[in-house]
């Protein structure tokens, strides 16, 4: 086989690869692109001509109607509050506990870490009923603390951060100790700067998990005042199935797509800005080989 035919064969093979990958990419992007574009169409056109897009008819009617009918701004506010407080707790407590697991000996360490590993395997939905009852006992149903405290330090974050911190050389820590650095100072001034990429991955993943969390908020904080963004979105769905006929369906559909678009955008922006950390975050928990 000559060099040129080899190159030709490789090009043909790449063509096949691209064909498959392009079809897949289109299938993965189409629903999102369709929804975002349709949100700008007149509501009636969305259901009458779902596949036609005429930019000259695009407008913000669906968004205007949606902001009037749906308490989505309030949902955003609740999500932002939970995100800020819960995210801070996770990012402060999990790496600190992981540091203790990675770099110290203490009584009960293996028992505690073993329990962490077991909870990694437990389906999260299993804790819903017991936690809900506990919230009832505490009188915390429909409060911020119920949205924030349970799950604030999850087992995965500890497990992952322990692996990251274990890679920090002990000699560095010992040298800093000789220089008179305190134990928390070691963590803050030596460990944290070294594990910054891992922390960034954890931060992105934590933001995504809290922003998307649905099961727990819908169970414990479904009141209008406490509903997070995702809960607000989900109640819109029951409105739509209640209005299946004619123009009403069009209006609800338009507003629903507008609401979905508004909910999609923040995460997509974060994702495009921090893609590298994002993919590192996903890979952190995976098994290789």
């Amino acid at each position, binding site marked *: 086989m000559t060099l040129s035919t080899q190159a030709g064969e490789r090009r043909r093979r790449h063509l096949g690869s691209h064909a*498959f990958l392009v079809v897949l*990419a289109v299938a*993965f992007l189409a629903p999102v692109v369709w929804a975002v574009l349709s949100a700008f169409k007149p509501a009636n056109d969305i259901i009458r001509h779902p596949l036609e897009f005429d930019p000259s008819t695009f407008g913000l009617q669906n968004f205007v109607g949606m902001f009037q009918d749906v308490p989505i701004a309030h949902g955003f506010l609740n999500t932002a509050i939970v995100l800020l407080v819960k995210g801070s707790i996770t990012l402060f407590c999990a790496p*600190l506990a992981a540091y203790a697991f990675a770099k110290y000996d203490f009584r009960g360490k293996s028992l505690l870490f073993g329990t962490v590993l077991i*909870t990694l395997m437990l389906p999260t939905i299993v804790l819903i009923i017991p936690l809900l009852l506990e919230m009832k006992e505490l009188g915390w149903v429909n409060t911020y603390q119920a949205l924030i405290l349970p799950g604030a330090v999850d087992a995965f974050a500890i497990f992952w951060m322990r692996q990251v911190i274990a890679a920090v050389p002990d000699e560095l820590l010992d040298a800093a100790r000789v220089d008179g650095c305190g134990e928390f100072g070691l963590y803050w001034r030596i460990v944290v700067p070294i594990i910054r990429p891992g922390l960034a991955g954890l931060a992105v993943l934590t933001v995504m998990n809290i922003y*998307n969390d649905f*099961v727990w908020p819908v169970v414990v904080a479904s009141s209008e005042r406490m509903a997070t963004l995702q809960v607000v979105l989900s109640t819109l769905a029951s409105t739509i199935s209640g209005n299946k006929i004619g123009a009403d369906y069009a209006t609800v559909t338009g507003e629903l*797509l507008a609401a979905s678009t508004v909910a999609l955008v923040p995460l997509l922006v974060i994702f495009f800005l921090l893609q590298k950390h994002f993919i590192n975050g996903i890979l952190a928990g995976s098994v*290789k*080989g």
Partner: protein
Amino acid sequence: MTTTSLPRATHPRRRGAGLPITRRLAPYVFVAPFVVLFLAFGIYPMLFTLRLSFTNWHGAGSARWVGWDNYTYLLTNPAFWNSLANSAVLWLLIIPVQLVIALAAAILLDNAKLRMRGFYRTAFIVPFVTPLVAVAQIWVVLFDQNYGAVNAVLGALGLPDIAWLTSSAWAKPTLALLFIWKTTGFIIVILLSGLQAIDSSVYEAAALDGAGRMRKVWSITVPLIRRTLMFAVVLQTLAVFQMFAEPFVVTQGGPYSSTTTAGLYLYNHITRGDLGTGAANSFLLVILVMALSLGMVRLLRAKD
């Protein structure tokens, strides 16, 4: 943290012996916030539920001890088995399709000479980043029998309409499509990390042997990333048996309970206030999921 819980400095087995007190105290202080939250919102509710699962409590008033009644009620209840069967069918609809697509895409993306790799990887991961509830809403609109874009595409191709959400035959495949769409990019990234750990000399040796492309995938790639593949399967099995938001938003478990998954069935006990049965259901689900995961891990070990 009291000093009595600390090891005595003279204890020979402790490595901390002789170290300054701050260094011995530090780890307890560092894990304390985690331990408090973990005991309060992890261990305590678990133990509380175990007790609850043997009562007929409805969330208020006094609870009566009913022994194994909740468990026998569930295990003899067709609706409970139906929820497990629905999840099992979804598992069958999802896992094989997803693995084949993800493996093919990951192998193609693993080729460093391929152009636009960054674009593809980004495109594949976008669904994973989108909020599930928002996407489930979009699914309701897209798959509407009369006004949805999917049936419009079928119509343009001269194919008949499909009752995606309103027939019990199609509701499960529609949810399976949503799940596959949402999570395949995540599986691709995981498999890609496994592929990148393979030494390229393995392939060169196979090329010298004249192995064809499909053969190389089947007899070299797959065995080498077996652990990564199993990891993906275990992860997805857990996710499928917990599936909740998808049926909750898209189909509300219908039509005719055909999409009442194990997760949604568990949730329904809460809305009915039947918390004792719900607690028992939680534990049955824990046992099932643990057994499935351990079974798969053992399968993996046996082949090593």
